[in-house]
């Protein structure tokens, strides 16, 4: 089939084709950027927290009345929980990944100099005993804290032992040569020494993005308040969770147990707005593609109805059904072909606009290519049904109505 007649007939009524092309181009610009944003959110939500999400229970306890010795009670609680079948490890931590409650500070290469070159990183601080074991963090260099390094503290910025664990993201920033263990840093005007590096430990605040999201540091402070962490085997965790409130109240009823969630639920909660944005964007993409597909189907139907006589004549002159079908498909492909070229440009422009006004990165070609493929496929499909009806036009029509 030659393209010439198709182009000529399209050019005789350019407004219709131009409108389809404009619609497809705009659709492409929007869905390419929307898919790009959806993928970014999915990646964000898929980040490792560093902890064993499904095996970790997080809860908070609040006391009322002055009658309780909270430290002694915490010891009783921890011992009780540790003895429950299925529990692997239990402790208190000052913070949990994506748990929102955040204490952060800047750390420096050395103690004396607080200039920005010397203090390039802000880190979130986690305090607690047995955090590596309880959260299930992966130690990739050095060692965990020794019992001698551990000190008791409920205060948020207390250093009584210089040993710290840092996340790999922090290690990479301060020690690009890969040897962080044994090195010294400055924090709160005091020297700290890196004893080990953990693979990942996501910060408590969801707002942190990119590599900053992983800037964390662990202090060897044994706590008896904050977040109660219970690590249990995945078959036991539901039972432990169901009993937790009753268990804690039986040990001491002058308190309230709040927000008990698994680490996975804590993360899902932190990502609620991202999840909402994904759904909204998906809805827009779905509706947009449907509107465009229906619009194309409607216009092709109209054009088929208008050209019944020509189609009948062509069929009478020997054109096969296949030829009619491919005429409409090719016509659509040509219009959409022009549209995706224009649309790719528009997608870039829209991305540039979003980059300038919002904190969005530059769009990758893949997303545009993916959207082009999606739109070409959808518009060919939308053409297929009315074009099939055109192919079934009887050659006799040509003789009947003229």
């Amino acid at each position, binding site marked *: 089939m030659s393209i010439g007649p198709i182009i000529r007939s399209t050019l005789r009524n350019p*407004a*219709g084709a131009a*409108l*389809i092309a*404009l*619609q497809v181009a*705009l*659709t492409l*610009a*929007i869905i390419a*950027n*929307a898919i790009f*944003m959806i993928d970014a959110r999915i990646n964000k939500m898929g980040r490792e927290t560093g902890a064993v999400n499904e095996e970790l229970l997080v809860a908070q306890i*609040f*006391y*009322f*009345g*002055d*009658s309780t010795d909270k430290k002694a009670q915490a010891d009783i609680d921890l011992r009780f929980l540790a003895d429950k079948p299925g529990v692997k490890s239990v402790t208190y931590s000052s913070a949990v990944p994506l748990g929102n409650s955040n204490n952060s500070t800047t750390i420096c290469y050395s103690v004396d100099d*607080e200039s920005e070159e010397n203090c390039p990183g802000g880190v979130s601080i986690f305090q607690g005993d047995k955090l590596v074991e309880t959260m299930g963090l992966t130690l990739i260099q050095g060692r965990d804290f020794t019992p001698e390094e551990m000190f008791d503290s*409920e*205060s*948020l*910025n*207390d250093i009584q032992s210089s040993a710290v664990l840092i996340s790999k993201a922090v290690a990479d920033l301060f020690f690009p040569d890969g040897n962080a263990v044994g090195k010294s840093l400055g924090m*709160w*005007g005091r020297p700290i020494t890196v004893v080990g590096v953990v693979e990942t430990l996501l910060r408590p605040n969801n707002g942190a993005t990119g590599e900053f999201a992983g800037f964390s540091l662990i202090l060897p402070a044994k706590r008896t308040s904050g977040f109660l962490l219970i690590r249990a085997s995945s078959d036991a965790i539901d039972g432990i969770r169901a009993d937790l409130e009753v268990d804690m109240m039986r040990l001491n009823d*002058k308190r*309230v147990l*709040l927000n008990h969630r698994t680490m996975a639920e804590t993360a899902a909660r932190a990502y*609620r*707005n991202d*999840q*909402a*944005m994904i*759904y*909204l*964007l998906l*809805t*827009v993409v779905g*509706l*947009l593609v*449907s*509107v*465009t597909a*229906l*619009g194309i189907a*409607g*216009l092709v*139907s*109209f*054009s088929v*109805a*208008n050209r019944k006589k020509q189609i009948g004549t062509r069929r009478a002159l020997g054109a096969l059904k296949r030829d009619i079908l491919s005429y409409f498909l090719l016509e659509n492909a040509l219009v959409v072909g022009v549209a995706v070229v224009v649309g790719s440009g528009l997608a870039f422009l*829209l991305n540039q606009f*979003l980059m300038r*006004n*919002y*904190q969005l990165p530059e769009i990758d070609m893949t997303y545009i290519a993916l959207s082009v493929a999606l739109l070409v496929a959808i518009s060919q499909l939308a053409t297929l049904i009315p074009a099939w009806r055109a192919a079934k036009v009887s050659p006799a029509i040509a003789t009947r109505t003229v």
Partner: protein
Amino acid sequence: MFNYYIKMGLKNIRQTPVLSSLIVFAIALGIGTSMTMISYYQAMAYNPAGAKSDQLFSVQLAAYGDDMETWGDMPDGLPRQMTNIDSSNLRLAANSFPQSPLYRVAPVIESRRKDIAPSLDFEGLMVDRDFFSMFDVEFEYGGAWDASIDLDPAKQVVISSSLNDWIFGGGNNVGKSFVMADGVKEFTVVGISKDWNPQPVYYDLTGGAFSQEGPGLFLPFALAKDLDMFPQGNMSGWRNANVRGFADVLKSEYVWQLYWIELKTADEVAAYKDFLAQYAQEQQKLGRFANPNPRGGLKTVQQWLEYNEVISEDNRVMVGLSLLFLLVCLVNTVGLLMAKFLRKMNESGVRRALGANKGQIFNQYLVEVGLLGVLGGFMGLLLSIAGLWGVRILYRTDIAQLDLSLVLAAIGLSIFSALLTGIFPAYRVCNANPSVFLKAQ
């Protein structure tokens, strides 16, 4: 004539059911999507302070630093919150403007009814007496505590209607007392306020701009030390403090409180600005900090809402995308209208030949498009009701409800955009040479 056009329009719509319903569907989707996102945006952009928006000011101080130029990433270099040292000084300063510091606490409250476990669900606000008049908190019974309590604190409290129900089971309980905050403290109720929960929670945006429940109780700020309760929310600082208890926080350079003042005239605003600058410089002289430019800042409620980015980036992006979506739907509609009108071309050819002028043909088609717009508007309205329901579920919020302005806007926007899309196709049709179509018959 108009009635006749409407009749013809309805007839034409019935005669081309597929194209007509595609057009209505496209308009409805565009309107539904954009109205959903716009009304959600509107709910976030709402300024709950109303007439007081320009008279209530959030006070900020550049009273920090060891030669630090800025505070965090705030472009104006001012911290959002204030130290207890500063707010305590400001509230006792010699001026007669209504003002109040503010921070949140989460006390454990015990009910006076039987068999009800103590609750942490009611949030407390630590404020001065002026807070109630400044923020138009209305009372069901009693009123604010006496002005003397702000200087010489007593265990008095204003509770919300909901908390009143929870503690006492409702009724006028002014003068009665209940126990909270570590059990040993008994507080006397001096006022019972109507439930108060402005959205966005402009008085304190540090814990998120929207909340399901408003504050359950208001406590005298002057009780801060006696109450010994850590604040809820954000706390940050530039100078390390060895914090082992709440008393250390009160003395520290940590910022964790908010400060509001009511200034009615431009003169008052100017006077207070001068006072703040002077205050910051005095504090610098006392050696608390070394700031290159110790100063104060005042922001109206509207400025405060924008400064705290109540409307998130996501909301703005979605409004933009939904408007682009509407644009695509309209382009789609233009194409479909062209097809629809071209089909009716010979009919208008006959009308032209019988003496109708171009303008009349044009008007007739626009009336038909307007009808499609009305249909699309109503359908779009239904879609935006469904859309807002979805958004409320997604963002777990009560805001963004259907209201009259949404109804009017949806239908108005729909008719307007339908007419806009109709102009080009109608123009094409009425400019066609009638003889061509007469011959084709």
